[in-house]
């Protein structure tokens, strides 16, 4: 029986409440909570080519943004910095770039620290603010990248169900305030019916559940038999999303594979 085979690749996305001291090592980034496991990164290592860290201010702050962050400017598509004190003051709603090498540290695999404003390169957040760590390109410093749950190819006939999941991380919005939802695509397990299921979790544009079902129907009905249907993956150039999803206005922020 000819049938399409669907290929999914992981994309890390971790949105979480900030804390004032910037040390997030108590909650390491995992494949479950952040869809990725970033490797150790020292202050001398620049990961900005493949990892982006953004700070969305919910509270205002006085003299809380360092010179490097001021120089980086706001994340494109977000409001300009307008605070006094040469823009070191943070205004609620502003989005700062923190993926410079001085700010984003991974002290032990998956354990994040964001430097304080006193250390040039960072800022001081509040507990109401949010941070967003995003994987934007394939890189071996963000795992799993060549092992199980890095990617998977599944027969379309093994698709069981699509289920919406509540998603409230960072208030359920991206740093550009785009509202987000989460959907899981459930397939029969690689190892058999007694081994549970294989689940593809997707954080995506809000109110697109029906469109995702439409996209899956389109992909399952496709007549691509000579190669996999590449639904989503990262490579060294960035993100690739199948037209069945992107043409329906579905932005994929994160994807993981749970077996």
């Amino acid at each position, binding site marked *: 029986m000819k*049938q399409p085979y669907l290929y999914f690749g992981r994309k890390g996305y971790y949105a979480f409440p900030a804390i004032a001291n910037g040390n997030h090592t108590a909650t390491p980034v995992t494949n479950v909570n952040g869809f990725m496991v970033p490797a150790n990164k020292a202050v001398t290592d620049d990961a900005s080519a493949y990892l982006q860290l953004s700070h969305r201010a919910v509270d205002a702050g006085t003299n809380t943004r360092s010179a490097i962050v001021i120089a980086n400017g706001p994340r494109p598509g977000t409001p300009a910095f307008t605070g006094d004190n040469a823009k070191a003051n943070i205004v609620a709603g502003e989005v700062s770039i923190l993926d410079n090498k001085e700010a984003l540290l991974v002290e032990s695999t998956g354990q994040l620290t964001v430097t304080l404003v006193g250390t040039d390169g960072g800022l001081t957040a509040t507990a109401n603010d949010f941070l967003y760590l995003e994987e934007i390109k*394939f890189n071996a410093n963000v795992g799993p*990248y*060549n092992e199980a749950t890095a*990617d998977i*190819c599944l*027969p379309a006939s093994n698709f069981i169900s699509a289920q919406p999941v509540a998603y409230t991380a960072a208030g359920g919005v991206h740093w550009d305030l785009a509202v987000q939802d989460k959907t899981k695509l459930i397939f029969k397990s690689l190892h*058999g019916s007694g081994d549970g299921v294989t689940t593809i979790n997707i954080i995506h544009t809000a109110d697109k559940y029906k469109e995702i079902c439409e996209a899956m129907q389109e992909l399952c009905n496709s007549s691509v038999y000579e190669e996999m249907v590449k639904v989503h993956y990262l490579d060294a150039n960035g993100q690739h999303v199948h037209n069945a999803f992107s043409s329906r206005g579905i932005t994929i922020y994160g994807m993981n594979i749970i077996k």
Partner: protein
Amino acid sequence: MIIIYNSNASITSTATVNAWQASGFRGMESSAAGTMTMTYPSAVNHSDAGDVVVATVVSSGSDDADRANRVAAMDAMVSKQNTVNKDGYVVAYSEIENVKPGGITGIAVTIDS
């Protein structure tokens, strides 16, 4: 279709040549820098495990090139699963016949027991 994997130049034991129903193919995943893993229903009909074919794929030295090589190998195996040969079986990989699609340089089969 019946799909055949021959992993060894000498047919000496189980796992040197194996056949499954292509319709039972459960999928593939990357499993290491130069390998990807395929699964079929267990030949002993266990519900919680499968028979496993680990394919060794050409390795280029670059992590992204290795990723692309694994994807190419998976693409080739999808084509094999979808091949129709009404007069016989489909050879997915064969050392004896030198059928090595998609940059796959070797396979190792583990039969569930």
